């Protein structure tokens, strides 16, 4: 079962996509849908920066792989840690499936759950500072028990 690939800095998108395509070429998948997330120039940022907590990220990804396998599909994912400059890419996900419908539905569910659940923290790089993107962040489901939410 493939693991999340983590890289320091921006992703080498052509290398990753080409390699994933070649790795799966002989498994009779009829559909492959990649999602590539690229850092946009916005609000004067120089880039984004990421912290990743690997143990929980890997558990989350394995649970998704099990879900994909049950549908005859396979997921791949790569993410950056540290600084990623404007116009570089920080995230790639891809679904391989026998037919298109499973891949089309799964890429949406997977990317949305990734945004809501994967233990990754984003910071804006602005004026040489690293500023937590709190307004764009989502509390993980079940958060708040230590503050009295049960």
């Amino acid at each position, binding site marked *: 079962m493939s693991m999340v690939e983590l890289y320091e800095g921006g992703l080498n998108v052509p290398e990753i996509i080409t390699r994933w395509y070649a790795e799966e070429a002989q498994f009779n998948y009829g559909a492959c849908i990649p999602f590539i*997330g690229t850092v946009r120039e916005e609000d004067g940022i120089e880039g984004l920066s*990421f*912290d990743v*907590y690997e*143990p*929980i990220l890997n*558990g989350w990804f394995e649970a998704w792989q099990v879900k994909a396998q049950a549908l005859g599909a396979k997921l791949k994912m790569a*993410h950056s840690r540290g600084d990623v400059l404007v116009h570089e890419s*920080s*995230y790639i996900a891809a679904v391989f499936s026998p037919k298109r419908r499973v891949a089309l539905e799964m890429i949406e569910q997977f*990317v949305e759950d*990734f*945004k*809501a*659940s*994967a*233990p*990754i*923290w*984003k*910071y804006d790089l602005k004026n040489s500072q690293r500023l*937590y*993107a*709190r307004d*764009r*962040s*989502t*509390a*993980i*489901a*079940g*958060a*708040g*028990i*230590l*503050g*009295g*939410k*049960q």
Partner: protein
Amino acid sequence: MVTIEFLGPIQKAPLTLEASSLRDVAEALKNDSEMAQWLESCAVAVNDTLVATLDTPLKAGDKVSLLPPVCGG
């Protein structure tokens, strides 16, 4: 003793304390002014598994992690 670690943007060194359940951890952190802004939005994991209740038991050597709101991608 259990270890409490603070992930991502929470700039705080790990703590060790005596606790038999997460309720004890909640009590200890409520008195920590640095943590007040985080407690309502953090998810909690024990030994890298997310948990949903303060009744989660803890034993010596356990690791409790606090995960603030996330934003990958």
